[in-house]
């Protein structure tokens, strides 16, 4: 009996061993480290992971297969790295996406038309006329009570995680002000959690700030169901008085999301220029030759389920004007003063 059992187990073991010799290793499709291999790897990475093909096709007829055919014809086995980089970078520019980059040791391919093709609408020289040098500075945020009792917060980026203590301290010091300007011009983004934390200082109840989804497979239309992004009121001091948010075209990514939250969830007035957009959270990948690829991977929508990839319009359009510039005035800040002084407390 024992012998029969033993032999059964032995046979089972041998069968398992045979199966193990035949098992297939789980591997990813690989591309050669050649000009053609790297080009194909780049095209394939974007093809399988990029999240805005549908929108770009509707907007200006982007056909990613056609781009492959077009740019692949420039690839030759003899081309050097600079030439390959130029071809790959040009192909990526067809996506017209500021979150798409190709980074090599010697250069970063980019699409920056979303702000370079527009007026800057921001001058740190003009800003200095308001901030001076005696402003407060914490976690990257500069803030000050201006002479007309308007509070001014300048947030140059969202790279730093705000602690609730930082934000509470800022709003505590500005509590005496009759209005507040939150300036996110030239803010290229950073951490979504920081943008959300700042927006949550302006709401008093749980609010849906927008929606988010992600790709569930390699297909251009393979997306999960959008899920609500819920903003929760900050536990510290929250701003209850009028507020104006200043924007320009260089207000991008997480800063664009901050404006989206402020527009949807608060009574804030958005003033300035259209934001730069960038509502796709970027992921990274890499090519066989080591070049780093960045691309939009996780799309975010506003409360009306509209993508803000192309930016968010302000409630009041204002550009910096030359006469104001010559007088050392920031046209947007001056306009914000008028809005706040006209707002009932």
């Amino acid at each position: 009996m024992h012998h029969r059992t033993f032999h059964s187990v032995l046979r089972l073991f041998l069968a398992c061993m045979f199966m193990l010799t035949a098992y297939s290793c789980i591997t990813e499709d690989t591309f050669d480290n050649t000009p053609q291999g790297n080009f194909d790897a780049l095209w394939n990475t974007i093809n399988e992971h990029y999240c805005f093909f549908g929108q770009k096709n509707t907007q200006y007829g982007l056909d990613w297969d056609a781009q492959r055919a077009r740019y692949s014809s420039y690839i030759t086995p003899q081309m050097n790295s600079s030439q390959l980089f130029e071809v790959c970078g040009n192909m990526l520019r067809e996506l017209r996406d500021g979150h798409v980059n190709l980074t090599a040791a010697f250069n970063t391919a980019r699409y920056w038309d979303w702000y370079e093709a527009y007026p800057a609408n921001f001058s740190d020289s003009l800003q200095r006329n308001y901030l001076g040098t005696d402003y407060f500075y914490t976690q990257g945020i500069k803030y000050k009570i201006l002479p007309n009792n308007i509070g001014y917060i300048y947030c140059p980026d969202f790279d730093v995680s705000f602690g609730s203590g930082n934000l509470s301290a800022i709003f505590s010091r500005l509590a005496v002000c009759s209005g507040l300007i939150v300036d996110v011009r030239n803010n290229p983004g950073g951490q979504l959690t920081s943008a959300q934390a700042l927006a949550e200082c302006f709401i008093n109840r749980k609010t849906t700030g927008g929606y988010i989804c992600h790709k569930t497979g390699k297909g251009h239309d393979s997306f999960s169901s959008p899920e609500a992004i819920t903003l929760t009121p900050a536990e510290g001091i929250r701003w209850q008085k009028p507020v104006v948010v200043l924007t320009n075209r260089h207000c991008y990514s997480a800063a664009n999301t901050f404006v989206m939250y402020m527009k949807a969830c608060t009574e804030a007035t958005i003033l300035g220029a259209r934001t730069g957009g960038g509502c796709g959270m970027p992921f990274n990948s890499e090519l066989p030759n080591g070049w780093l690829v960045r691309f939009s991977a996780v799309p975010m929508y506003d409360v009306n389920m509209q993508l803000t990839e192309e930016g968010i319009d302000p409630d009041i359009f204002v550009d910096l004007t030359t006469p104001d510039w010559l007088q050392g005035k920031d046209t947007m800040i001056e306009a914000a003063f008028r809005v706040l002084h006209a707002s009932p407390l």
Partner: protein
Amino acid sequence: MRYAMSRQDSSDYSDTLFSRCIMNKVPAILFLLLVPILIKAQGKGGDSLILRTHSTMLGLGRINQLDSYLSPLEYTGPQVRIVQENTRPTRLLRGRVSMQNLIQANFSYTKSPTEDSKYLSGMLDWNLALHYMWQPAPALRFLAGPQLGMHGGGIYNTRNGNNPAQARLAIDLNASGLAIYSFRLFNRSLQARYQLDFLLAGMAFSPEYGQSYYEIFSLGQEKHNLCFTSPFSAVTVNQLLTLDIPVGASQMRIGIEHVMRQTHVNHLKTHDWTWLFLIGYVRHFSLVKP
């Protein structure tokens, strides 16, 4: 009844050691094919009762890593590993069932093919197995049974932005088997062991194909992140071949280990292929009845 624990000479326990074995699949097949020959070759072996075995081994080897959530490229580099094993008998099935408690911790530092990017990874494995023993010959024993495994850790990519890391969490139900063979060589009692564990079914954490950790952890959107695993979606095999060598009053254990942990869930592919050389010691304890 009074129990006392004593440490005994290694030669007394040569047929009852429950230490781990490492082997790749080809040597493993050769080993099992040679079993009948080995049975005949073995003249005699001790069969004294060993109740508990503890072993600790330090391993050094190389790992090949793939995590398509982080990169489509395979990273390679060194791995260090600590393997801790405890075995003890149970009263199940008239004492023919033993329990093996196997804990492994490892740290890896791997590089992409062009060495532009690096992975830092750390994993902890805990496996608990119940083995039923057959002894077809005095010097040969086979053990087989179920094994429950828990696997946790993470990989960090040094240059990715919003997908910089990947968490690894899994619960495995494995099949586990051992072959233990005792023999004498140069007037010393040696013991060779081969252990094979492979996944039958389990559950594993994985983000969805393009899902960000911001959605999972900051927004609490955790749908479809717990995935069923099977030999079709997660070919996971652990092989261990060891040799116990008496050194003075104690025993040294040397071995090789091959770990193949893979998943293909949510359209994401991962693999950790590890080869390690191990060295350590074994201690045996028995319950002495008055």
